[in-house]
């Protein structure tokens, strides 16, 4: 594909989570690329591994989770294998992140100014005064009124939408080449959602930032993304340009997802033949399609073929035996 233009390349990423109940593979064979000025959308239901994927890009996985295979390359840097100090320098300044819940992302006992200024001064050689001026300038750019007051305010005094905009302002001020936005609008109401999306769009256009946009809201993805990957059970099951994916979805899961969005879930669904219980025991977890238990098109071939993400047509990848 368009390898040379990509800034961040994720290749064959596999993440396992160890809990007291055992070890589970939460991200499987995930590969994608982020390009400057492009938005890459990642959709999928809750628990499909979206956040895990995001966190690994900054090498910030929780203690229980571990990357067991694959690589993450940022320009020429191997994120997973360079020193702690090297990754730290990349965080915020080169690859920035916007958190899902703005209300909990800030330290409740420190004010906005503290958060903003410390971030600037960590990455830039400027004094407190310069950092303050800079912070105010960027807050103003985000259409946040009275930036001087805002810096003195504490997170609990601001609304979720305002905090989200503060996060974007912090991001902008360091002009990173990649922004990871993990469900940036989920915690917000409709008006605020629109505002945030507008600002993200600006970030992409004015600063040429490459954005990884995670959402389970297909509307948001359709509006923003250039390319989309659909995740299910830790796998990317379909990946294509936004037009192709929405107009001609191929994978049964993507189709179900789009149908349910349009309210077209047909009654027929009830009669969908599921893999019968007796068959279920025969399913080889190692090789079976992750969607097999909910798929209407499933049959024995789905249970015993190790699935790969293959080209259905140019730049349209699907992980399904029936479509290859």
């Amino acid at each position: 594909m368009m390898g040379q233009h990509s800034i961040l390349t994720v290749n064959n990423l596999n993440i396992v989570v160890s809990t007291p109940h055992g070890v589970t593979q939460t991200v499987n064979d995930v590969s994608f690329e982020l390009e400057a000025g492009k938005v890459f959308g990642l959709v999928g239901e809750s628990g499909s591994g979206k956040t895990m994927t995001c966190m690994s890009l900054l090498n910030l996985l929780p203690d229980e989770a571990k990357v067991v295979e694959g690589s993450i390359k940022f320009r020429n840097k191997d994120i997973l294998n360079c020193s702690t100090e090297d990754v730290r320098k990349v965080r915020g300044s080169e690859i920035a992140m916007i958190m899902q819940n703005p209300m909990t992302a800030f330290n409740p006992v420190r004010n906005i100014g503290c958060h903003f200024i410390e971030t600037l001064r960590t990455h830039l050689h400027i004094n407190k005064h310069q950092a303050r001026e800079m912070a105010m300038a960027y807050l103003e750019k985000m259409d946040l009124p009275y930036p001087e007051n805002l810096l003195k305010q504490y997170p609990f005094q601001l609304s979720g939408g305002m905090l989200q905009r503060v996060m974007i302002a912090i991001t902008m001020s360091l002009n990173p080449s990649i922004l990871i936005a993990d469900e940036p609008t989920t915690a917000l109401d409709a008006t605020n959602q629109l505002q945030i999306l507008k600002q993200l769009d600006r970030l992409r256009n004015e600063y040429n930032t490459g954005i990884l946009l995670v959402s389970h809201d297909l509307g948001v993805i359709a509006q923003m993304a250039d390319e989309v990957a659909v995740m299910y059970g830790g796998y990317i099951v379909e990946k294509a340009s936004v037009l192709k994916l929405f107009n001609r979805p191929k994978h049964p899961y993507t189709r179900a997802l789009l149908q349910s969005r349009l309210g077209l879930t047909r009654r027929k669904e009830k009669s969908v033949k599921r893999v019968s219980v007796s068959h279920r025991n025969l399913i080889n977890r190692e090789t079976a399609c992750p969607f097999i238990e909910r798929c209407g098109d499933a049959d024995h071939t789905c249970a015993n073929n190790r699935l790969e993400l293959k080209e259905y047509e140019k730049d349209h990848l699907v992980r399904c035996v029936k479509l290859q």
Partner: protein
Amino acid sequence: MSWFIVKRVTSLLPILFGISLITFILLHLTPGDPAAAYLRASHIPPTDEAVATLRAELGLDKPLYIQYVNWLIKVVQLDLGISYVSKNSVWEEIMLHFFPTVQLAFASCIFIIVISLPIGMISAIYRGKWIDQFSRIIAFVSVSMPAFWLGFLLIYFLSVKLDLFPVLGRGTFAHLVLPSLTLAFPYIGTYMRLLRTSTLENLNEPFVVYARARGLRERRIVSRHVLKKSLLPVLTGLGMSLGNMLSGAVIVETVFAWPGMGSLFITSILNRDYPMIQGCLLFMGAIFVVCNLLVDLTYAFLDPRIRWEGGKK
């Protein structure tokens, strides 16, 4: 902030009133006649006649509420009466014993803070490592070891054997070390573990993840973000403990012959020295209330959420 202080201070008045009422009633409900106790303390045989005269003299024959009002009026003027035993002013006796207690309590607080906070913090950051195991052991020992035993051990090894510190009494700075360490020891384990727990909780908070995602150095995240927030629950406890220590540490004071509030209180109980008991109870109650106020104010100072809530109303 100033609004918050005013609000908190005024809310103390009813509490103090309640304490005075309870102190007064409690003592008059307990069996035993104060007049008889007075006579016994003065080595006068408590004949019926002598008791009756004294009751009239002390105002004990009046109805309870009048006694209370009279007592309260005096209390407000810091006149807590005269000790039956020493015949000195109760207030002066308390002041005399309070200063050594304050000394002991603050020295203990310094021990608690200096020892438990760093270890608690570090054992959270290096969870499961040797320092964490070590702190677990200290915590276990510290909460299960009786104070008198620890006191005697310290005296035996550090004073008698090694001759590092004076054995008993009060005077130089060196006299302060062993008793305050003994007093601090049980708290050290508690606060070490408390800080460890709250630090661990905070280390998993999204704001720490976001701080890391912004590229902050780990050192700064811990010192500027995690520490301050983790200290809040410790602070509440510490204020209560300070109140506890300021109202006297009976066992430690006895072991080290420390002339503090604890020994004053126990002696007055043994002597049935009613005005003294009343004075001590009231004084300790007031100390607790003031410590609570200090905790609240510090809390508000550290946690803006409380400060604002207080200011709005």
